[in-house]
């Protein structure tokens, strides 16, 4: 199981601005998932990326998987207060009977009106 590094740890910006958050590892990801978590709730899956260089869009959110599959980014265009939350990247555990997810520590995002 590898270590997932997320940056920045905290980000506070004004409504309407653009932002990018990152997830990196020293090892190759088999696949990578992005989640969003709001206070008092569990994480909710946003997207899964599998292929190096893959780009997926979800409304104003754009997810990119690095060509070497060691990094991923999440870009939000024209951020809105509803985008506030904890953004987590995760990789599925593997090997033998293993399952479950290994998460990064997340980016705490605050969008101020």
């Amino acid at each position: 199981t590898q270590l997932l590094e997320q940056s920045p740890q905290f980000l506070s910006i004004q409504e309407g601005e653009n932002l990018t958050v990152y997830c990196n590892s020293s090892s190759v990801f088999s696949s990578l998932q992005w989640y969003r978590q709001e206070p008092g709730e569990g994480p909710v899956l946003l997207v899964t990326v599998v292929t190096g260089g893959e780009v997926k869009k979800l409304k104003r959110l754009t997810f990119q998987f690095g060509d070497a599959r060691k990094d991923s980014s999440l870009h939000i265009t024209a951020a809105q207060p509803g985008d506030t939350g904890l953004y987590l990247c995760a990789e599925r555990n593997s090997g033998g009977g293993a399952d479950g997810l290994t998460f990064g520590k997340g980016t705490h995002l605050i969008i101020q009106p």
Partner: protein
Amino acid sequence: GAGVSQSPSNKVTEKGKDVELRCDPISGHTALYWYRQSLGQGLEFLIYFQGNSAPDKSGLPSDRFSAERTGGSVSTLTIQRTQQEDSAVYLCASSLARRSEQFFGPGTRLTVL
């Protein structure tokens, strides 16, 4: 349909006491996962069930932690002789099958005084 539910939503206990946390997965989901989320460590995998068996217990931090699942449905996570470092939010997730999308419950916030 109903999502994953967890009870209690909050639990305050004294150091040294035992606690039981309950998870009701989405009906028909065969895989069930427990995670722990704390400020310092982020979101950590604890244990994975497929049906009633637990092929992956690799994340349980000590032998004070145990979990069971009966009837392929409800699961209970038990922490014996609680310590202050056990204070965290305990999250449960379920998925239709192994390696399918995981759906998280709202968590149980455990505070050990």
